[in-house]
Protein backbone atom coordinates (compact mmCIF):
# COMPACT_ATOMS: atom_id res chain seq x y z
CA UNK A 1 0.00 0.00 0.00
CA UNK A 2 1.26 3.45 -0.87
CA UNK A 3 2.58 5.59 1.91
CA UNK A 4 0.30 8.54 2.37
CA UNK A 5 1.13 11.21 4.84
CA UNK A 6 -1.44 13.60 3.42
CA UNK A 7 -4.67 11.99 4.59
CA UNK A 8 -5.59 12.90 8.15
CA UNK A 9 -7.00 10.61 10.78
CA UNK A 10 -9.84 12.14 12.79
CA UNK A 11 -11.79 11.08 15.87
CA UNK A 12 -15.52 11.79 15.59
CA UNK A 13 -17.60 13.06 18.51
CA UNK A 14 -18.64 10.53 21.18
CA UNK A 15 -22.18 9.52 20.24
CA UNK A 16 -23.05 7.92 23.59
CA UNK A 17 -23.81 9.23 27.06
CA UNK A 18 -20.46 8.51 28.64
CA UNK A 19 -19.97 10.14 32.04
CA UNK A 20 -17.90 13.30 32.41
CA UNK A 21 -15.20 11.27 34.13
CA UNK A 22 -15.09 8.67 31.38
CA UNK A 23 -14.87 11.41 28.79
CA UNK A 24 -11.99 13.13 30.59
CA UNK A 25 -10.05 9.88 30.89
CA UNK A 26 -10.82 9.03 27.29
CA UNK A 27 -9.66 12.34 25.82
CA UNK A 28 -6.60 12.65 28.06
CA UNK A 29 -5.48 9.29 26.78
CA UNK A 30 -6.29 10.26 23.20
CA UNK A 31 -4.23 13.43 23.67
CA UNK A 32 -1.27 11.52 25.06
CA UNK A 33 -1.28 8.38 22.96
CA UNK A 34 -3.55 8.29 19.91
CA UNK A 35 -2.06 9.06 16.49
CA UNK A 36 -5.07 11.07 15.32
CA UNK A 37 -4.66 14.54 13.81
CA UNK A 38 -8.05 16.01 14.59
CA UNK A 39 -10.66 15.50 17.29
CA UNK A 40 -14.35 16.46 17.13
CA UNK A 41 -15.85 17.34 20.50
CA UNK A 42 -19.35 18.13 21.70
CA UNK A 43 -22.78 16.56 22.15
CA UNK A 44 -24.28 15.71 18.77
CA UNK A 45 -27.18 13.44 19.71
CA UNK A 46 -29.11 14.65 22.78
CA UNK A 47 -29.28 18.19 24.15
CA UNK A 48 -30.26 16.85 27.59
CA UNK A 49 -26.85 15.27 28.00
CA UNK A 50 -24.75 18.35 27.29
CA UNK A 51 -24.88 19.89 30.80
CA UNK A 52 -23.15 16.78 32.20
CA UNK A 53 -19.93 17.35 30.35
CA UNK A 54 -19.79 20.76 28.69
CA UNK A 55 -18.02 22.35 31.67
CA UNK A 56 -15.02 20.15 30.87
CA UNK A 57 -14.78 21.28 27.25
CA UNK A 58 -12.21 24.08 27.80
CA UNK A 59 -9.90 21.69 29.68
CA UNK A 60 -10.25 18.99 27.03
CA UNK A 61 -9.68 21.44 24.20
CA UNK A 62 -6.54 22.77 25.85
CA UNK A 63 -5.17 19.32 26.57
CA UNK A 64 -5.81 18.06 23.03
CA UNK A 65 -4.40 21.18 21.41
CA UNK A 66 -1.28 20.98 23.55
CA UNK A 67 -0.85 17.48 22.18
CA UNK A 68 -0.89 18.93 18.66
CA UNK A 69 -4.43 17.91 17.72
CA UNK A 70 -6.80 20.18 15.86
CA UNK A 71 -10.04 20.38 17.85
CA UNK A 72 -13.39 20.96 16.17
CA UNK A 73 -16.66 21.59 18.03
CA UNK A 74 -19.66 19.72 16.60
CA UNK A 75 -23.28 20.89 16.78
CA UNK A 76 -26.43 18.86 17.43
CA UNK A 77 -27.89 16.77 14.62
CA UNK A 78 -31.49 17.49 15.63
CA UNK A 79 -32.52 21.05 16.45
CA UNK A 80 -36.07 21.68 17.55
CA UNK A 81 -36.30 22.92 21.14
CA UNK A 82 -35.23 26.31 22.47
CA UNK A 83 -32.19 24.89 24.25
CA UNK A 84 -31.13 23.11 21.06
CA UNK A 85 -31.47 26.29 19.01
CA UNK A 86 -29.47 28.17 21.63
CA UNK A 87 -26.70 25.55 21.79
CA UNK A 88 -26.42 25.61 18.00
CA UNK A 89 -26.35 29.41 17.85
CA UNK A 90 -23.63 29.54 20.52
CA UNK A 91 -21.26 27.33 18.57
CA UNK A 92 -22.16 29.03 15.28
CA UNK A 93 -21.25 32.42 16.74
CA UNK A 94 -17.69 31.37 17.62
CA UNK A 95 -14.77 33.04 15.89
CA UNK A 96 -12.87 29.83 15.17
CA UNK A 97 -13.50 28.24 11.76
CA UNK A 98 -13.14 24.83 13.41
CA UNK A 99 -16.77 24.12 14.07
CA UNK A 100 -18.74 21.29 12.51
CA UNK A 101 -22.36 22.05 11.68
CA UNK A 102 -24.85 19.18 11.68
CA UNK A 103 -28.15 20.97 11.12
CA UNK A 104 -29.33 23.69 8.71
CA UNK A 105 -30.18 25.84 11.75
CA UNK A 106 -26.42 26.09 12.32
CA UNK A 107 -25.82 27.07 8.69
CA UNK A 108 -28.34 29.88 9.06
CA UNK A 109 -26.67 31.14 12.23
CA UNK A 110 -23.20 30.84 10.72
CA UNK A 111 -24.26 33.14 7.85
CA UNK A 112 -21.53 32.22 5.40
CA UNK A 113 -18.53 32.36 7.75
CA UNK A 114 -16.07 29.42 7.51
CA UNK A 115 -17.16 26.10 8.99
CA UNK A 116 -17.15 22.37 8.44
CA UNK A 117 -20.23 20.47 7.28
CA UNK A 118 -20.97 17.41 9.41
CA UNK A 119 -22.17 13.94 8.39
CA UNK A 120 -25.82 14.71 9.23
CA UNK A 121 -26.00 17.47 6.60
CA UNK A 122 -26.61 15.24 3.57
CA UNK A 123 -23.75 16.39 1.34
CA UNK A 124 -24.59 13.69 -1.19
CA UNK A 125 -23.38 15.24 -4.43
CA UNK A 126 -21.08 17.67 -6.18
CA UNK A 127 -23.79 20.31 -6.69
CA UNK A 128 -24.60 20.38 -2.99
CA UNK A 129 -20.92 20.40 -2.04
CA UNK A 130 -20.29 23.32 -4.41
CA UNK A 131 -23.25 25.18 -2.91
CA UNK A 132 -21.97 24.54 0.61
CA UNK A 133 -18.42 25.64 -0.29
CA UNK A 134 -19.89 28.85 -1.69
CA UNK A 135 -21.53 29.40 1.70
CA UNK A 136 -18.35 29.04 3.71
CA UNK A 137 -17.85 25.29 4.05
CA UNK A 138 -14.15 24.42 4.29
CA UNK A 139 -14.78 20.70 4.71
CA UNK A 140 -17.61 18.21 4.18
CA UNK A 141 -18.28 14.87 5.85
CA UNK A 142 -19.96 12.53 3.38
CA UNK A 143 -23.04 10.45 4.31
CA UNK A 144 -22.19 6.92 5.51
CA UNK A 145 -24.33 5.24 2.82
CA UNK A 146 -22.50 6.69 -0.20
CA UNK A 147 -20.92 4.03 -2.44
CA UNK A 148 -17.32 4.27 -3.71
CA UNK A 149 -18.39 5.61 -7.12
CA UNK A 150 -20.13 8.60 -5.51
CA UNK A 151 -17.38 9.11 -2.91
CA UNK A 152 -14.90 9.44 -5.78
CA UNK A 153 -16.92 12.13 -7.57
CA UNK A 154 -17.75 13.96 -4.33
CA UNK A 155 -14.14 13.95 -3.10
CA UNK A 156 -12.88 15.14 -6.47
CA UNK A 157 -15.33 18.04 -6.46
CA UNK A 158 -14.27 18.94 -2.90
CA UNK A 159 -10.66 18.89 -4.04
CA UNK A 160 -11.44 21.14 -7.00
CA UNK A 161 -13.17 23.55 -4.64
CA UNK A 162 -10.18 23.48 -2.30
CA UNK A 163 -12.07 21.98 0.64
CA UNK A 164 -11.67 18.80 2.70
CA UNK A 165 -13.70 15.59 2.25
CA UNK A 166 -14.18 13.17 5.13
CA UNK A 167 -15.42 9.57 5.26
CA UNK A 168 -16.11 7.43 8.31
CA UNK A 169 -13.81 4.39 8.25
CA UNK A 170 -14.45 2.91 11.68
CA UNK A 171 -17.31 2.47 14.14
CA UNK A 172 -21.07 2.11 14.12
CA UNK A 173 -22.84 3.97 11.32
CA UNK A 174 -25.50 6.49 12.26
CA UNK A 175 -28.59 5.15 10.48
CA UNK A 176 -31.34 7.43 11.75
CA UNK A 177 -32.33 10.12 14.21
CA UNK A 178 -35.77 10.82 15.61
CA UNK A 179 -37.60 13.22 17.89
CA UNK A 180 -38.44 10.26 20.09
CA UNK A 181 -36.00 8.73 22.55
CA UNK A 182 -35.92 4.96 22.08
CA UNK A 183 -33.83 4.42 25.17
CA UNK A 184 -36.53 6.05 27.26
CA UNK A 185 -39.22 4.11 25.39
CA UNK A 186 -37.45 0.80 26.06
CA UNK A 187 -37.66 1.58 29.76
CA UNK A 188 -41.28 2.70 29.66
CA UNK A 189 -40.37 6.38 30.02
CA UNK A 190 -40.66 9.50 27.89
CA UNK A 191 -37.84 11.72 26.68
CA UNK A 192 -38.64 14.44 29.21
CA UNK A 193 -38.54 11.88 32.03
CA UNK A 194 -35.74 9.65 30.74
CA UNK A 195 -33.58 9.70 33.88
CA UNK A 196 -30.66 9.24 31.49
CA UNK A 197 -31.05 5.48 31.12
CA UNK A 198 -28.89 5.71 28.01
CA UNK A 199 -25.81 5.97 30.24
CA UNK A 200 -26.14 2.23 30.88
CA UNK A 201 -25.17 1.37 27.33
CA UNK A 202 -21.67 2.59 26.58
CA UNK A 203 -21.75 1.11 23.08
CA UNK A 204 -25.46 1.52 22.40
CA UNK A 205 -28.41 -0.70 23.40
CA UNK A 206 -28.46 -3.84 21.25
CA UNK A 207 -31.64 -4.80 19.42
CA UNK A 208 -32.03 -8.36 18.16
CA UNK A 209 -34.66 -9.70 15.81
CA UNK A 210 -37.28 -12.00 17.35
CA UNK A 211 -35.29 -14.93 15.94
CA UNK A 212 -32.26 -13.67 17.86
CA UNK A 213 -30.15 -12.04 15.18
CA UNK A 214 -28.33 -8.81 16.15
CA UNK A 215 -29.61 -5.98 13.95
CA UNK A 216 -29.42 -2.41 15.34
CA UNK A 217 -28.22 -0.31 18.27
CA UNK A 218 -30.27 2.31 20.05
CA UNK A 219 -28.53 5.42 21.36
CA UNK A 220 -31.19 7.79 22.68
CA UNK A 221 -32.84 9.41 19.65
CA UNK A 222 -30.29 7.83 17.34
CA UNK A 223 -30.39 4.40 15.69
CA UNK A 224 -27.03 2.94 14.76
CA UNK A 225 -25.76 -0.05 12.85
CA UNK A 226 -25.09 -3.20 14.85
CA UNK A 227 -21.87 -3.69 12.90
CA UNK A 228 -18.80 -1.51 13.09
CA UNK A 229 -17.92 0.02 9.76
CA UNK A 230 -14.37 -1.08 8.97
CA UNK A 231 -12.77 0.35 5.82
CA UNK A 232 -9.18 -0.67 6.57
CA UNK A 233 -8.92 -2.64 3.30
CA UNK A 234 -10.36 0.32 1.39
CA UNK A 235 -8.15 3.03 2.91
CA UNK A 236 -5.72 3.36 0.03
CA UNK A 237 -8.53 3.60 -2.51
CA UNK A 238 -10.29 6.26 -0.45
CA UNK A 239 -7.11 8.32 -0.29
CA UNK A 240 -6.39 7.77 -3.99
CA UNK A 241 -9.92 8.96 -4.76
CA UNK A 242 -9.27 12.25 -2.98
CA UNK A 243 -10.69 11.68 0.51
CA UNK A 244 -8.60 13.93 2.79
CA UNK A 245 -9.91 12.93 6.24
CA UNK A 246 -10.70 9.49 7.63
CA UNK A 247 -12.99 9.37 10.64
CA UNK A 248 -12.89 6.91 13.51
CA UNK A 249 -16.05 6.92 15.63
CA UNK A 250 -15.49 6.35 19.36
CA UNK A 251 -16.79 2.94 20.44
CA UNK A 252 -16.45 1.23 23.81
CA UNK A 253 -13.18 -0.44 22.79
CA UNK A 254 -9.55 0.60 23.08
CA UNK A 255 -9.67 3.55 20.68
CA UNK A 256 -5.99 4.36 21.07
CA UNK A 257 -5.16 0.95 19.67
CA UNK A 258 -7.77 1.33 16.92
CA UNK A 259 -6.19 4.64 15.90
CA UNK A 260 -2.73 3.05 15.97
CA UNK A 261 -3.85 0.30 13.59
CA UNK A 262 -5.36 2.74 11.08
CA UNK A 263 -2.34 5.01 11.37
CA UNK A 264 0.03 2.12 10.69
CA UNK A 265 -1.86 1.12 7.56
CA UNK A 266 -1.94 4.71 6.31
CA UNK A 267 1.81 4.96 6.79
CA UNK A 268 2.27 1.67 4.99
CA UNK A 269 3.93 0.23 8.10
CA UNK A 270 1.81 -2.92 8.23
CA UNK A 271 -0.13 -4.99 5.72
CA UNK A 272 -3.92 -4.81 5.65
CA UNK A 273 -4.34 -8.49 6.61
CA UNK A 274 -2.19 -8.03 9.66
CA UNK A 275 -4.03 -4.83 10.56
CA UNK A 276 -7.41 -6.57 10.19
CA UNK A 277 -6.31 -9.28 12.58
CA UNK A 278 -5.21 -6.66 15.08
CA UNK A 279 -8.49 -4.76 14.77
CA UNK A 280 -10.38 -8.01 15.32
CA UNK A 281 -8.36 -8.58 18.46
CA UNK A 282 -9.19 -5.10 19.76
CA UNK A 283 -12.91 -5.23 18.96
CA UNK A 284 -13.80 -8.77 19.99
CA UNK A 285 -16.92 -10.41 18.60
CA UNK A 286 -18.60 -7.42 16.93
CA UNK A 287 -19.41 -7.75 13.22
CA UNK A 288 -17.45 -5.58 10.77
CA UNK A 289 -19.11 -4.16 7.66
CA UNK A 290 -18.22 -2.31 4.48
CA UNK A 291 -21.34 -3.00 2.39
CA UNK A 292 -22.18 0.66 1.80
CA UNK A 293 -18.80 1.25 0.15
CA UNK A 294 -19.62 -1.45 -2.41
CA UNK A 295 -23.18 -0.26 -2.98
CA UNK A 296 -24.61 -3.23 -1.10
CA UNK A 297 -26.61 -3.58 2.11
CA UNK A 298 -24.70 -1.63 4.74
CA UNK A 299 -24.39 -4.53 7.18
CA UNK A 300 -22.56 -6.74 4.70
CA UNK A 301 -18.90 -7.53 4.78
CA UNK A 302 -17.62 -7.64 1.21
CA UNK A 303 -14.30 -9.33 0.52
CA UNK A 304 -11.91 -6.74 -0.84
CA UNK A 305 -9.40 -7.34 -3.62
CA UNK A 306 -6.96 -5.11 -1.75
CA UNK A 307 -6.92 -7.29 1.35
CA UNK A 308 -5.67 -10.39 -0.41
Amino acid at each position, binding site marked *: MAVNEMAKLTLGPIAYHWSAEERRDFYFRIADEAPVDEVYLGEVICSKRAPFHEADLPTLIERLEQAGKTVILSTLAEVMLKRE*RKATAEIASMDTPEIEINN*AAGLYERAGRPHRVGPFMNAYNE*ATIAWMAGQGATHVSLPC*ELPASAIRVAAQSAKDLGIGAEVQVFGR*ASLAVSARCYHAR*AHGRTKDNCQFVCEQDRDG*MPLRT*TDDRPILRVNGIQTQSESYVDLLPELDRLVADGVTHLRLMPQAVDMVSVAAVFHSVLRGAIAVDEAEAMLRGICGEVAFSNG*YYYGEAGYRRVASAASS
Partner: protein
Amino acid sequence: MSLAELICPAGTPAALRTAVDAGADAVYCGFQNATNARNFPGLNFTPQELRESVAYAHARNAKVLLALNTYPPAGKTDLWWQAADIGAGLGVDAFIIADMGVAHYLAQNHPGIRLHLSVQAAASSPEAIRYYCQHFGVKRVVLPRILTIPEIREIRKEIPCEIETFIFGNHGLMVEGRCSLTSYLTGKSTNMDGVCSPAADVEYKRHEDGSMSSQLGGFTIDCFRCDEKAGYPTICKGRYAAPHRREGYYAFEEPVSLNLSRLLPELIDAGVHAFKIEGRQRSKSYVRGVVSAFRRAVDDIRAGRPANMADLVALTEGQKQTHGAFETKKWR
Protein backbone atom coordinates in the same frame (compact mmCIF):
# COMPACT_ATOMS: atom_id res chain seq x y z
CA MET B 1 -53.41 33.30 0.55
CA SER B 2 -55.81 30.42 0.75
CA LEU B 3 -56.03 28.81 4.15
CA ALA B 4 -56.31 25.10 4.81
CA GLU B 5 -55.49 23.79 1.34
CA LEU B 6 -55.84 20.07 0.91
CA ILE B 7 -52.75 18.47 -0.65
CA CYS B 8 -53.48 15.00 -1.96
CA PRO B 9 -51.38 12.09 -3.17
CA ALA B 10 -51.38 10.86 -6.76
CA GLY B 11 -49.41 7.73 -7.57
CA THR B 12 -50.99 7.38 -11.02
CA PRO B 13 -52.78 9.64 -13.52
CA ALA B 14 -56.06 7.92 -12.56
CA ALA B 15 -55.48 8.64 -8.88
CA LEU B 16 -54.66 12.24 -9.76
CA ARG B 17 -57.97 12.68 -11.59
CA THR B 18 -59.77 11.00 -8.70
CA ALA B 19 -58.14 13.32 -6.15
CA VAL B 20 -58.94 16.42 -8.22
CA ASP B 21 -62.56 15.30 -8.69
CA ALA B 22 -62.87 14.60 -4.96
CA GLY B 23 -61.88 18.18 -4.15
CA ALA B 24 -58.10 18.36 -3.79
CA ASP B 25 -56.71 21.89 -3.89
CA ALA B 26 -53.42 20.43 -5.06
CA VAL B 27 -52.05 17.01 -5.89
CA TYR B 28 -48.46 15.91 -5.54
CA CYS B 29 -46.73 13.35 -7.71
CA GLY B 30 -43.37 12.29 -9.11
CA PHE B 31 -41.61 10.81 -12.12
CA GLN B 32 -40.98 7.07 -12.56
CA ASN B 33 -37.45 7.11 -11.18
CA ALA B 34 -35.23 7.82 -8.17
CA THR B 35 -35.93 11.55 -8.23
CA ASN B 36 -38.83 11.20 -5.79
CA ALA B 37 -39.29 9.51 -2.42
CA ARG B 38 -42.02 7.07 -3.56
CA ASN B 39 -40.06 5.33 -6.29
CA PHE B 40 -42.20 2.18 -6.18
CA PRO B 41 -42.87 -0.22 -9.06
CA GLY B 42 -46.05 0.64 -10.97
CA LEU B 43 -46.28 4.14 -9.52
CA ASN B 44 -45.67 7.62 -10.80
CA PHE B 45 -45.78 9.50 -14.08
CA THR B 46 -44.16 9.61 -17.49
CA PRO B 47 -43.55 13.15 -18.82
CA GLN B 48 -46.49 12.71 -21.22
CA GLU B 49 -48.79 11.56 -18.39
CA LEU B 50 -47.71 14.50 -16.30
CA ARG B 51 -48.46 16.90 -19.17
CA GLU B 52 -52.01 15.55 -19.47
CA SER B 53 -52.44 15.53 -15.69
CA VAL B 54 -51.35 19.15 -15.34
CA ALA B 55 -53.90 20.09 -18.00
CA TYR B 56 -56.62 18.09 -16.21
CA ALA B 57 -55.85 19.64 -12.83
CA HIS B 58 -55.47 23.19 -14.10
CA ALA B 59 -58.77 22.99 -15.99
CA ARG B 60 -60.39 22.20 -12.63
CA ASN B 61 -58.53 24.85 -10.68
CA ALA B 62 -56.26 22.41 -8.86
CA LYS B 63 -52.48 22.66 -8.62
CA VAL B 64 -49.86 20.04 -9.38
CA LEU B 65 -46.80 19.80 -7.14
CA LEU B 66 -43.87 17.76 -8.42
CA ALA B 67 -41.84 15.86 -5.81
CA LEU B 68 -38.13 16.11 -6.60
CA ASN B 69 -37.31 15.32 -3.02
CA THR B 70 -34.55 12.74 -2.96
CA TYR B 71 -30.79 13.32 -2.67
CA PRO B 72 -28.89 12.70 -5.92
CA PRO B 73 -25.70 10.73 -5.32
CA ALA B 74 -22.54 12.34 -6.70
CA GLY B 75 -22.06 11.55 -10.39
CA LYS B 76 -25.78 10.97 -11.03
CA THR B 77 -27.22 14.46 -10.75
CA ASP B 78 -28.22 14.60 -14.44
CA LEU B 79 -31.36 12.56 -13.77
CA TRP B 80 -32.50 15.23 -11.27
CA TRP B 81 -31.65 18.16 -13.56
CA GLN B 82 -33.59 16.47 -16.35
CA ALA B 83 -36.63 15.99 -14.10
CA ALA B 84 -36.39 19.62 -13.01
CA ASP B 85 -36.25 20.87 -16.60
CA ILE B 86 -39.11 18.64 -17.77
CA GLY B 87 -41.30 19.54 -14.81
CA ALA B 88 -40.69 23.26 -15.27
CA GLY B 89 -41.44 22.93 -18.99
CA LEU B 90 -44.75 21.20 -18.23
CA GLY B 91 -45.86 24.05 -16.00
CA VAL B 92 -46.10 22.31 -12.64
CA ASP B 93 -47.14 24.76 -9.93
CA ALA B 94 -44.33 23.99 -7.52
CA PHE B 95 -41.43 21.63 -6.89
CA ILE B 96 -41.08 19.81 -3.58
CA ILE B 97 -37.34 19.71 -2.93
CA ALA B 98 -34.94 18.62 -0.17
CA ASP B 99 -31.36 18.61 -1.53
CA MET B 100 -29.54 21.96 -1.51
CA GLY B 101 -27.94 21.20 -4.87
CA VAL B 102 -31.38 20.55 -6.40
CA ALA B 103 -32.81 23.70 -4.78
CA HIS B 104 -29.92 25.75 -6.13
CA TYR B 105 -30.29 24.25 -9.61
CA LEU B 106 -33.98 25.16 -9.74
CA ALA B 107 -33.44 28.65 -8.32
CA GLN B 108 -30.71 29.29 -10.91
CA ASN B 109 -32.20 27.66 -13.98
CA HIS B 110 -35.88 28.22 -13.41
CA PRO B 111 -36.05 31.46 -11.45
CA GLY B 112 -39.51 32.31 -10.28
CA ILE B 113 -40.66 28.71 -10.03
CA ARG B 114 -42.27 28.03 -6.68
CA LEU B 115 -40.33 25.80 -4.28
CA HIS B 116 -41.74 23.87 -1.34
CA LEU B 117 -39.32 22.42 1.18
CA SER B 118 -39.93 18.67 1.49
CA VAL B 119 -40.26 16.91 4.81
CA GLN B 120 -37.15 15.09 3.58
CA ALA B 121 -35.12 18.26 4.28
CA ALA B 122 -35.88 17.79 8.01
CA ALA B 123 -36.21 21.52 8.73
CA SER B 124 -37.63 21.51 12.25
CA SER B 125 -36.61 24.93 13.59
CA PRO B 126 -37.28 28.51 12.45
CA GLU B 127 -33.58 28.96 11.68
CA ALA B 128 -33.36 25.88 9.45
CA ILE B 129 -36.51 26.94 7.59
CA ARG B 130 -35.24 30.50 7.17
CA TYR B 131 -32.02 29.14 5.66
CA TYR B 132 -33.97 27.64 2.76
CA CYS B 133 -36.22 30.68 2.40
CA GLN B 134 -33.27 33.06 2.35
CA HIS B 135 -31.13 31.17 -0.13
CA PHE B 136 -33.57 29.40 -2.43
CA GLY B 137 -36.73 31.47 -2.06
CA VAL B 138 -38.71 28.58 -0.55
CA LYS B 139 -42.37 29.58 -0.21
CA ARG B 140 -43.65 26.72 1.92
CA VAL B 141 -42.20 24.21 4.36
CA VAL B 142 -43.58 20.73 4.91
CA LEU B 143 -42.93 20.27 8.62
CA PRO B 144 -41.45 17.07 10.01
CA ARG B 145 -44.01 14.97 11.85
CA ILE B 146 -42.29 15.56 15.18
CA LEU B 147 -43.73 18.86 16.40
CA THR B 148 -46.60 19.58 18.78
CA ILE B 149 -49.32 22.05 17.81
CA PRO B 150 -48.05 24.74 20.24
CA GLU B 151 -44.60 24.35 18.68
CA ILE B 152 -46.06 24.72 15.17
CA ARG B 153 -47.86 27.87 16.33
CA GLU B 154 -44.55 29.31 17.57
CA ILE B 155 -42.66 28.41 14.40
CA ARG B 156 -45.37 30.06 12.31
CA LYS B 157 -44.59 33.39 13.96
CA GLU B 158 -40.90 33.17 13.18
CA ILE B 159 -40.76 32.16 9.53
CA PRO B 160 -41.47 34.04 6.30
CA CYS B 161 -43.17 31.13 4.50
CA GLU B 162 -46.28 28.97 4.58
CA ILE B 163 -46.58 25.77 6.60
CA GLU B 164 -47.83 22.42 5.37
CA THR B 165 -48.28 19.50 7.77
CA PHE B 166 -49.10 15.86 7.29
CA ILE B 167 -52.54 15.01 8.57
CA PHE B 168 -53.31 11.48 7.51
CA GLY B 169 -51.61 8.27 6.42
CA ASN B 170 -48.39 6.44 7.03
CA HIS B 171 -46.49 7.65 10.05
CA GLY B 172 -42.72 7.65 9.69
CA LEU B 173 -40.83 7.50 12.96
CA MET B 174 -37.41 8.70 11.99
CA VAL B 175 -36.49 12.20 10.92
CA GLU B 176 -37.18 11.99 7.21
CA GLY B 177 -34.21 12.53 4.96
CA ARG B 178 -31.95 11.30 7.75
CA CYS B 179 -32.85 7.61 7.67
CA SER B 180 -30.60 4.89 6.23
CA LEU B 181 -32.34 1.93 7.85
CA THR B 182 -33.56 0.52 4.53
CA SER B 183 -30.16 0.78 2.87
CA TYR B 184 -28.52 -0.90 5.86
CA LEU B 185 -30.60 -4.05 5.30
CA THR B 186 -31.21 -3.95 1.53
CA GLY B 187 -28.61 -1.75 -0.18
CA LYS B 188 -31.37 0.42 -1.64
CA SER B 189 -31.47 3.90 -0.18
CA THR B 190 -34.46 5.96 0.88
CA ASN B 191 -32.52 9.18 0.28
CA MET B 192 -30.83 8.27 -3.01
CA ASP B 193 -33.25 5.74 -4.57
CA GLY B 194 -36.55 6.92 -3.11
CA VAL B 195 -37.48 3.58 -1.56
CA CYS B 196 -38.45 2.44 1.93
CA SER B 197 -38.65 -1.30 2.63
CA PRO B 198 -38.74 -2.17 -1.11
CA ALA B 199 -41.20 -4.94 -1.99
CA ALA B 200 -38.53 -6.90 -3.86
CA ASP B 201 -36.68 -7.45 -0.57
CA VAL B 202 -39.77 -8.46 1.41
CA GLU B 203 -40.58 -12.05 2.28
CA TYR B 204 -43.22 -13.68 4.46
CA LYS B 205 -42.35 -16.99 6.08
CA ARG B 206 -44.83 -19.45 7.54
CA HIS B 207 -43.51 -21.47 10.47
CA GLU B 208 -44.51 -24.95 11.62
CA ASP B 209 -46.52 -23.62 14.57
CA GLY B 210 -48.63 -21.58 12.17
CA SER B 211 -47.01 -18.28 12.99
CA MET B 212 -45.80 -16.01 10.22
CA SER B 213 -42.74 -13.82 10.11
CA SER B 214 -42.22 -10.82 7.87
CA GLN B 215 -38.70 -10.23 6.65
CA LEU B 216 -36.73 -7.51 4.93
CA GLY B 217 -33.42 -8.36 3.29
CA GLY B 218 -33.44 -11.65 5.18
CA PHE B 219 -33.89 -10.01 8.62
CA THR B 220 -37.03 -10.81 10.62
CA ILE B 221 -38.85 -7.53 11.23
CA ASP B 222 -41.90 -8.93 12.98
CA CYS B 223 -43.55 -12.23 13.85
CA PHE B 224 -47.27 -12.83 14.00
CA ARG B 225 -49.36 -15.50 15.69
CA CYS B 226 -51.98 -17.31 13.59
CA ASP B 227 -54.71 -15.02 14.92
CA GLU B 228 -52.79 -11.84 14.07
CA LYS B 229 -52.76 -10.08 10.72
CA ALA B 230 -49.22 -10.00 9.33
CA GLY B 231 -48.08 -6.43 8.66
CA TYR B 232 -45.66 -5.08 6.08
CA PRO B 233 -42.05 -5.22 7.30
CA THR B 234 -41.07 -1.59 7.84
CA ILE B 235 -37.94 -1.44 10.00
CA CYS B 236 -39.15 1.36 12.29
CA LYS B 237 -42.39 -0.54 12.96
CA GLY B 238 -40.66 -3.82 13.71
CA ARG B 239 -40.57 -5.94 16.87
CA TYR B 240 -37.19 -6.53 18.45
CA ALA B 241 -35.68 -7.79 21.69
CA ALA B 242 -33.48 -5.67 23.96
CA PRO B 243 -31.46 -6.94 26.94
CA HIS B 244 -34.25 -6.15 29.41
CA ARG B 245 -37.08 -6.68 26.90
CA ARG B 246 -36.35 -10.24 25.90
CA GLU B 247 -39.96 -10.96 24.97
CA GLY B 248 -39.68 -8.53 22.05
CA TYR B 249 -41.40 -5.14 21.74
CA TYR B 250 -42.00 -2.40 19.23
CA ALA B 251 -38.71 -0.60 19.86
CA PHE B 252 -39.62 2.45 17.76
CA GLU B 253 -43.38 2.47 17.22
CA GLU B 254 -46.35 0.16 16.91
CA PRO B 255 -47.67 -0.34 13.40
CA VAL B 256 -50.05 2.63 13.51
CA SER B 257 -51.07 5.26 11.02
CA LEU B 258 -51.45 8.99 11.53
CA ASN B 259 -54.93 10.46 11.74
CA LEU B 260 -55.09 14.07 12.88
CA SER B 261 -58.68 14.66 11.86
CA ARG B 262 -59.76 15.53 15.41
CA LEU B 263 -56.96 18.12 15.61
CA LEU B 264 -57.89 19.78 12.31
CA PRO B 265 -59.58 22.86 13.82
CA GLU B 266 -56.63 23.44 16.14
CA LEU B 267 -54.13 23.08 13.32
CA ILE B 268 -56.03 25.59 11.19
CA ASP B 269 -56.09 27.94 14.14
CA ALA B 270 -52.33 27.48 14.60
CA GLY B 271 -51.82 28.93 11.13
CA VAL B 272 -51.16 25.81 9.07
CA HIS B 273 -51.74 26.71 5.40
CA ALA B 274 -51.96 23.28 3.88
CA PHE B 275 -52.71 19.73 4.96
CA LYS B 276 -51.00 16.83 3.34
CA ILE B 277 -52.52 13.40 2.96
CA GLU B 278 -49.90 10.67 2.64
CA GLY B 279 -50.37 7.74 0.29
CA ARG B 280 -49.16 7.91 -3.31
CA GLN B 281 -48.98 4.12 -3.14
CA ARG B 282 -52.72 3.90 -2.32
CA SER B 283 -55.62 2.88 -4.55
CA LYS B 284 -58.06 5.20 -6.31
CA SER B 285 -60.89 4.24 -3.98
CA TYR B 286 -58.76 5.01 -0.93
CA VAL B 287 -57.84 8.40 -2.40
CA ARG B 288 -61.50 9.12 -3.23
CA GLY B 289 -62.69 8.22 0.28
CA VAL B 290 -60.04 10.09 2.20
CA VAL B 291 -59.95 13.20 0.03
CA SER B 292 -63.71 13.69 -0.05
CA ALA B 293 -64.04 13.20 3.70
CA PHE B 294 -61.32 15.77 4.41
CA ARG B 295 -62.77 18.12 1.77
CA ARG B 296 -66.12 18.17 3.62
CA ALA B 297 -64.45 18.64 6.99
CA VAL B 298 -62.19 21.48 5.86
CA ASP B 299 -65.07 23.26 4.12
CA ASP B 300 -67.21 22.96 7.24
CA ILE B 301 -64.49 24.34 9.47
CA ARG B 302 -63.74 27.20 7.06
CA ALA B 303 -67.44 28.09 6.97
CA GLY B 304 -67.67 27.97 10.75
CA ARG B 305 -69.89 24.89 10.72
CA PRO B 306 -69.27 21.93 13.03
CA ALA B 307 -67.41 19.33 10.98
CA ASN B 308 -68.47 15.73 10.95
CA MET B 309 -65.33 14.21 12.39
CA ALA B 310 -66.89 10.77 12.63
CA ASP B 311 -66.39 10.27 8.87
CA LEU B 312 -62.70 10.97 9.19
CA VAL B 313 -62.17 8.83 12.23
CA ALA B 314 -64.02 6.01 10.50
CA LEU B 315 -61.46 6.05 7.69
CA THR B 316 -59.01 4.21 9.87
CA GLU B 317 -61.59 2.19 11.77
CA GLY B 318 -60.30 -1.23 12.68
CA GLN B 319 -56.73 -0.03 12.39
CA LYS B 320 -54.58 1.45 15.08
CA GLN B 321 -54.21 5.18 14.71
CA THR B 322 -52.23 7.87 16.44
CA HIS B 323 -51.98 11.62 16.86
CA GLY B 324 -48.22 11.06 16.76
CA ALA B 325 -46.13 13.91 18.05
CA PHE B 326 -48.77 16.56 17.43
CA GLU B 327 -50.83 16.26 20.60
CA THR B 328 -48.30 15.95 23.40
CA LYS B 329 -44.60 15.98 24.11
CA LYS B 330 -45.05 12.63 25.86
CA TRP B 331 -44.92 10.98 22.44
CA ARG B 332 -41.20 11.68 22.43
